[in-house]
């Protein structure tokens, strides 16, 4: 039986259990529904849960655990000549055995007999069925594959029976427990709670898992490069990882990348904050509902554009434009038509990233500004203040903590932004202050280090994890601080 068929059967059993539970509860109420502690539906759900949950749980465990046991058994059945060649070879052969096992299932009995007796070529027979093999295969493989197949089939059969029995047993057990005063409602409630808990812990565990894996790779990196040279190094020159060299000749200084990241984020914020904030003030305070209804979604469309498109825009439009206009300007002033802005520069990346950030700043700030109570506006206007005086002296000060929080959230986006800087910032890792020159960022270098043909045990690639975890730490701190400020501000008006 296939897994989906077993699942379907479990669900059918569950459905039957639901109706059985309902019927039993209705019967035990003796025609007076109010005599029941819980409505019949709850009893039904309770029984169905007993039928489905344990069975599904056992099914899941079995599916996860059985391949492990079967492979172990096959592994120990491999010939000693293979076993003596070390784990790598054993795993390789095991992989081939499974490939063969998979292929054998597609052969009909005649072909199978031919293969097992050795009269037909294993590789050709399998290739005819669309299962490729790396080499001709050896006789022990067919044997091991058959062993594997028989174990698998046996396991599957036992599993199907066991799961079905558990499903029915669960349903019977639950039905026997049903009586009028039985608190099915509360039990169902507890299962609901458990479901919600599991869902939320999956999200949290995933985060923990990602951080954990990044950390473990980063630690491997720090075994070959000392943390102090990474965090305080001023030269980024990772070299190439020549196969087998395993060399640490490269220099992995974080500071030039960090400087570029922060500089570009700063330029982006310099552009996005005033524009975004003014847009938010206009939307929240001046715009008529009709204008607001059209303009606000339009502004927020900007936030929906994939960042690769912005990067492209920077690469083919903004960068060349800045380069050309700088050449013209230079020509007008000095007569020498040489551009002083590079096409790939801090300014290009910052400008385009700023455009990307405008909707974030304006949308978040707009929410915060409209949260300032109307009574404060009225109070100020009632004293004869103009609108802009009211905004400047009452609304913005009241909204300031929230706006600062919004800006920090935006800044953490700017720091983590990848596609725009990959295309527009350049790859030169240097520390300098001229915004017209190219600089590079942490994210660009992560992309650089992980693209291409590479092995995953040299510092040249592992450094990406160290960079990633550093970036993660920075944005996490920014986010936590921002949320802290926003939350503190919320409390004022509630």
């Amino acid at each position: 039986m296939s897994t989906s068929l077993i699942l379907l059967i479990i669900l059918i059993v569950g459905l039957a259990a639901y109706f059985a539970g309902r019927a039993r509860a209705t019967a035990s109420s003796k025609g007076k529904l109010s005599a029941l502690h819980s409505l019949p539906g709850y009893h039904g759900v309770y029984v169905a849960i007993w039928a489905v949950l344990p069975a599904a749980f056992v099914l899941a465990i079995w599916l996860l655990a059985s391949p492990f046991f079967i492979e172990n058994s096959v592994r120990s059945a491999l010939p000693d000549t293979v076993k003596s060649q070390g784990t790598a070879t054993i795993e390789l052969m095991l992989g081939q055995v499974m490939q063969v096992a998979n292929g054998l299932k597609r052969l009909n009995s005649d072909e199978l007999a031919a293969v097992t007796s050795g009269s037909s070529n294993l590789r050709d027979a399998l290739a005819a069925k669309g299962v490729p093999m790396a080499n001709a295969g050896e006789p022990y493989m067919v044997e091991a594959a058959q062993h594997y197949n028989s174990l698998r089939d046996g396991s599957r059969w036992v599993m199907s029976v066991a799961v079905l029995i558990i499903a029915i047993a669960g349903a019977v057990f639950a039905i026997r427990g049903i009586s009028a005063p039985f608190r099915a409602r509360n039990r169902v409630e507890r299962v609901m709670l458990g479901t919600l808990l599991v869902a939320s812990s999956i999200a949290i565990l995933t985060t923990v898992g990602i951080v954990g894996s990044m950390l473990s790779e980063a630690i491997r990196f720090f075994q070959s490069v000392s943390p102090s040279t990474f965090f305080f190094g001023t030269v980024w020159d990772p070299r190439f990882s020549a196969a087998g060299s395993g060399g640490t000749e490269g220099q992995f200084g974080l500071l030039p990348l960090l400087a570029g990241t922060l500089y570009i984020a700063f330029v982006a914020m310099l552009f996005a904050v005033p524009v975004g904030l003014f847009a938010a003030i206009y939307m929240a305070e001046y715009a008529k509902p009709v204008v607001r209804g059209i303009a606000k979604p339009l502004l927020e469309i900007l936030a929906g554009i994939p960042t690769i498109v912005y990067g492209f825009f920077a690469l083919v439009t903004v960068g060349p434009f800045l380069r050309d206009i700088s050449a013209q300007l230079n020509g007008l002033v000095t007569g020498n038509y040489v551009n002083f802005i590079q096409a790939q520069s801090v300014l290009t990346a910052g400008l385009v990233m700023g455009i990307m950030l405008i909707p974030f700043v304006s949308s978040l700030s707009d929410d915060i500004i409209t949260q300032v109570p109307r009574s404060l506006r009225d109070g100020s206007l009632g004293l004869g203040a103009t609108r802009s005086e009211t905004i400047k002296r009452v609304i913005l000060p009241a909204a300031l903590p929230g706006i600062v929080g919004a800006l920090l959230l935006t800044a953490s986006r700017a720091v983590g932004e990848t596609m725009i800087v990959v295309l527009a910032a350049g790859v030169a890792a240097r520390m300098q202050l001229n915004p017209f020159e190219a600089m590079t960022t942490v994210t660009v270098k992560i992309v650089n280090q992980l693209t291409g043909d590479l092995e995953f045990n040299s510092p040249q690639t592992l450094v990406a994890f160290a960079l990633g975890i550093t970036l993660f730490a920075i944005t996490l701190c920014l986010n936590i601080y921002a949320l802290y400020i926003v939350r503190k501000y919320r409390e004022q008006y509630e």
Partner: protein
Amino acid sequence: MNMMSEAAVEKALDQKMNTVPFKMIGKDVSVYYGEKRALFDVNLNVRENTVTALIGPSGCGKSTFLRTLNRMNDTIDSCRVTGKITLDDGDIYDPSIDVVELRARVGMVFQKPNPFPKSIYENVTYGPKIHGLARTKAELDQVVESSLQKAGLWNEVKDRLHESGTGLSGGQQQRLCIARAVAVSPEVILMDEPCSALDPIATAKVEELIHELRTNYTIVIVTHSMQQAARVSQRTAMFHLGNLVEENDTDKMFTNPDDQRTQDYIMGRFG
């Protein structure tokens, strides 16, 4: 003369009510919110240095009328006002009128205390700073002290002027808002149910304050409490369904009103 009780003096003052000049004149005032008409040709005059109470059941248009007096309705997009309202013979809806200047002359105190999230000192100096009424620190100090004195709050807050205004109790906050309005030296003060969010003791203090402010300011107050209207006002106007039903001396209004609806409302038969 000193044998006369205070109540008798008040009564004598009220008798002369008809000779008091008008401060603001409303003629055929109608207000529309979009398609909906909220006020129907109201003719109501406000006398100088008098407390005029606006009463009536919820939704009768009394707050709407109050807000037309300093054009606070302008802040509502869909709102439209027709008719004519004058302040000292100047049409306040004339296009040449500066609404900011108007609101400096006609101050407002709101239903819910709404001090700015700033210090008590800054709350009071907010208006004077905007209008350039005081330049130096000494002048500002002077304005703060006199405004808080007038609002009867000085003794309670003089030692903590630089603490936040939102940290005061509800009654203190409302008196701070009155001080804030007084600091701009308005001629008229509009009050929109100033005591509805306050407890009885704080209410008594604010009422007492209204009584004192009357000597220097013209006051228009919207209230839901008949007793409050009777206690603090000399003139009372009764609104119903967007119409002005009756406007009269407060004494007459509460003892022998001209209109049956006023009688019914005051007796608590509807509203």
